[in-house]
């Protein structure tokens, strides 16, 4: 107890700041997540989280295994949040014209139109939906964006009809008919370029997701026999840290009771 009191004698400012750090202050109003599944045999995989706080959305999209190159350059993958339909990814039966490829249009009855473009920079509105310059690049990448969420996207998220779709297939994996076909969206491009490769419906998270793992090992720096002496020895930062932890623990204990 003596030790504890000494730690608490640390300047109020530092303690106040640290005490704040114990609460989930930055928790989003709503958190959504999805594990993306492959479409059209792309053999890609991915995850996406969307945290909405007020009118701001923080989206993190991680993908891998997508088509890597297109005409000797990194393959551009346009990617969006779709909405306003059934909130569903297309089944193979969605391939109405039987060319072996579910085009973006053929998938639309399930996932709807574009409500947000998950661009790598700049505009996130539907208007940027087919801008290859701000598309994801190559086989594997992460897009981490914070943007103002529009009404359509917010409504789709809350209704459970928001669907993330990443487009762009390796033409070599398509049927002959599919390879010969033109894009239903941009006729100057091949069908492969705009067809869905990954798809997943955004669902409300069952928890406020922590960042990363947990520091569940006592490191040598704090576990050593000298740790106590060091803290008492006065390094202000270390002492403040211990004091902060104490305050946090007390608060947790109180709220638990």
């Amino acid at each position: 107890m003596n030790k504890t009191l000494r730690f608490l004698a640390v300047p109020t400012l530092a303690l106040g700041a640290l005490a704040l750090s114990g609460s989930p202050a930055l928790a989003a109003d709503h958190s959504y997540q999805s594990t993306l599944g492959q479409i059209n045999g792309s053999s890609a995989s991915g995850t996406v989280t969307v945290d909405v706080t007020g009118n701001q959305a923080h989206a993190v999209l991680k993908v891998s295994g997508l088509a890597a190159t297109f005409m000797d350059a990194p393959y551009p993958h346009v990617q969006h949040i779709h909405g306003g339909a059934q909130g569903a990814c297309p089944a193979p039966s969605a391939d109405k014209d039987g060319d072996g490829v579910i085009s973006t249009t053929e998938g639309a009855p399930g996932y709807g139109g574009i409500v947000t473009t998950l661009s790598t920079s700049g505009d996130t509105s539907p208007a940027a939906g087919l801008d290859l310059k701000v598309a994801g690049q190559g086989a594997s990448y992460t897009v981490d964006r914070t943007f103002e969420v529009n009404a359509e996207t917010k409504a789709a998220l809350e209704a459970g009809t928001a669907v993330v779709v990443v487009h762009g297939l390796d033409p070599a994996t398509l049927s002959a008919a599919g390879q010969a076909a033109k894009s239903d969206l941009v006729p100057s491009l091949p069908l492969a370029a705009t067809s869905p490769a990954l798809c997943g419906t955004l669902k409300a998270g069952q928890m406020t997701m922590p960042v990363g793992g947990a520091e569940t090992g006592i490191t040598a720096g704090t576990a050593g026999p000298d740790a106590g002496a060091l803290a008492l020895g006065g390094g202000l930062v270390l002492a403040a840290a211990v004091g902060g932890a104490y305050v946090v623990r007390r608060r947790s204990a109180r709220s638990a009771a």
Partner: protein
Amino acid sequence: MPGSTASSSPPAAPAPSPADAAPAAPAAAEPDVLSRSEPVTLEIPAIGLTTGLIKLGLRDNGSLEVPEDKGNGAPASWYNGSPTPGERGPSVVLGHVNALGGHKGVFADLRQLRPGSDIIVLRADGSSAVFSMDHAAQYSKDGFPTLEVYGNTPGSELRLVTCDGYDPSTGRFNDNYVIYAKLKT
């Protein structure tokens, strides 16, 4: 010392309370779960572990708060932003692998658990949630797959998280070891 003995013996034979007892046949594929009740004690008979569970949240940077070791070991903790054990979703429980002074931490023996091992959580409403270990995985803290560990689950699941990957050159633990368990129904 490990697993700082908490509330010693639980109330005898608590009755599991099936949460949604009434609507027996809602849409398929949603396994039955228990109603919300905060956890009190964790028991893992296979490694002789009984520990109290404290309740902790997130730090300012969004990472998990961990139990503080004040010199006599620390109990395990339940992340109070995750579902309670037995509710639908992954309930997250943390424990140190080691303790001050070179002692074992409350979760030092998690590696001995095998798929099928029982993990029992006694809850504030007197019921218990009994989980069965499914699998375990070791992840680098640099590449921790948050969605896999913390992401939605169809039924009630449990995640026991501790450290691994001790690096003698830095004195740090580079990895997390995670046990995945599912509620027995």
